[in-house]
């Protein structure tokens, strides 16, 4: 299983202290994948400049400036200003913050819920499994858009809009992950080392957390990257429709909102092009990373 190239064996006279685990092998493979590595660097770059936005730009993101409405890109406003006279570049950075934050936290919630429910259902089987999986089916069949719109309308102004959105998206999106984790656990728990682990006195919780999850973690990680990408899309779509992040908070989706107007769409490209391009490239790179991870964890791939 271990991949040691001819060169390595010649150079390293002293063998490494701890032999390379599945993870070390995966890391090595991932680092060799140029596309995935470039994508990762790009994503990190976007994340870092977004979260450092207050230090990079000093323009006010919320103040409406009637004197500078819809200006074309210039040296003062690198990407021009939008219809309310706000600097597009600044909003792009702050928007990245929100979009990535929503994507990230939704992914964490979704993965947590999906893994919890999937692994419990898969490990215990029987009635527990049926109950949890029927509940999962129920969640998967929920009319997502309607629910989000209604819930947002009910909770509007009562709770911080951002967290309502994160909560609602997460609560409705874990179904797929739960199914995947369950099926993986079902296959994995038949292995003899699980019986062996039970036979040395491990509790069910310990079996799931320590023996089963590490063995399905690679799948979960790959799923997490894909979920991350789709969460950014969902946020953008909802915000574009006006049901997402509250208007005063800039997000990539919110910035696209103005493209509804034909005038902006046709003649003021600088207002909506930057977030559109950024969303596309970000999602593309996340997918490349996911693809790279999938290859890295696949023992049969030799790339």
């Amino acid at each position: 299983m271990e991949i040691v190239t001819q060169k390595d064996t010649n150079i390293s006279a002293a063998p490494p202290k701890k032999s390379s685990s599945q993870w070390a092998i995966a890391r090595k493979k991932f680092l060799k994948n140029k596309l995935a590595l470039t994508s990762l660097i790009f994503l990190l770059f976007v994340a870092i400049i977004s979260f450092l936005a207050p230090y990079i730009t000093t323009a006010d993101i919320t103040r409406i400036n009637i004197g500078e409405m819809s200006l074309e890109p210039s040296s003062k406003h690198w990407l021009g200003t939008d219809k309310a006279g706000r600097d597009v570049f600044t909003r792009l950075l702050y928007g990245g913050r929100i979009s990535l934050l929503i994507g990230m936290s939704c992914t964490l919630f979704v993965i947590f819920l999906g893994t919890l429910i999937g692994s419990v259902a898969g490990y215990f089987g029987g009635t527990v499994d049926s109950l949890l999986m029927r509940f999962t089916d129920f969640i998967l069949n929920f009319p997502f858009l309607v629910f989000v719109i209604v819930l947002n309308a009910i909770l509007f102004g009562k709770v911080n809009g951002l967290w309502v959105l994160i909560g609602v998206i997460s609560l409705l999106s874990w179904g797929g992950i739960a199914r995947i984790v369950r099926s993986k656990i079902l296959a994995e728990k038949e292995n003899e080392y699980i019986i062996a682990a039970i036979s040395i006195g491990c509790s069910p919780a310990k079996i799931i957390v320590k023996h089963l999850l590490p063995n399905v973690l690679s799948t979960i990680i790959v799923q997490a990257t894909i979920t991350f990408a789709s969460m950014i899309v969902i946020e953008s779509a909802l915000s574009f429709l006006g049901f997402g992040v509250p208007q005063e908070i800039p997000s990539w989706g919110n910035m696209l909102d103005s493209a509804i107007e034909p005038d902006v769409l046709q003649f003021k490209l600088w207002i909506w092009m930057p977030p559109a391009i950024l969303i596309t490239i970000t999602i593309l790179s996340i997918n490349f990373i996911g693809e790279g991870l999938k290859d890295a964890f696949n023992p049969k791939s030799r790339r």
Partner: protein
Amino acid sequence: MSTKKMLRNEAPLLEVKNLETAFDIEGTDYNAVDNVSFQVKPRQIVGIVGESGCGKSVMSLSIMKLLPKGIGKVKSGEIIFDGKNLEKMSESQINKIRGKDVSMIFQEPMTSLNPVFTIGYQLQEVLFNHMKISKQEARQKAIALLKSVGISRPEKLVDEYPHQLSGGMRQRVMIAIAIACQPKLLIADEPTTALDVTVQAQILELLKEIQAVNDMSVILITHDLGVVAEMCDEVIVMYAGRIVERADVDTLFHNPKHPYTTLLLGAIPKMDEQEERLSSIQGIVPSLTNMPKVGCRFAHRCPKAMPKCFTVTPVLGDIEQDHEVACLLYETSIPREGVK
């Protein structure tokens, strides 16, 4: 012989009474283990032999409560270990016993170790489960354990992963894990079946050594009579979920009573005889779903079968001191009136 006499008078460490384990196949229960009773004395090695599908493994899984959930269950009977009824215990209670007082070695060393953890981690896990011990101590103990099962470079091996080890090495690691907490009873479910012959001999030698050093009892499940002859004090022959004969090892090999035992012994290839064909027992063990309801379950393969073998179910009876047989050829096996 004197030690064996001594053993007889001691209180049993494990007592299985009228154990019935059933599998649920399409809504109907089929007994894979049917009314089995036996005892294991302290420091005794008991061999359980029989063809594939005789319920040997199911019985060992019943003792450890490791039967597949929802499909297999213990229907009736008692499993008394060290004075406690394992059958009445909750999952968390039995977890305190598993790995500490009773542990198990499995057939497949290639898949019995978790591929994502180092050998050391898996050894330390059982120690952490049952002992209050620091990380440093656990590591030292893991290395000592690996040394005790005859692994030559334990300091290095603790940091290696299962895929870097050969089958024999892995089985040694499994044994090390099983004996880590010095259990009173070790259940070895065909520990050498997946290994090649030379390694087999080494592993058996090791098991015997460890048994003597740790003063533990062993239940050795196998279908290899050679292994039984070498290792065991007492032998239980099982057929289709029932015990057909039980005796100490010398008696069984020199004076087998049940036709099935005789045929099993006859099926061992002999070095000194030139035979064209190896002798075998014709037919196969009936599957769970078409097990005969009454009569001796071996009757349709038995060369000595009589008409009543198909209608009367034999019971296990003492044919002589410490030698039980369930076969209608012997009077002790004919069920008395009013007794099922």
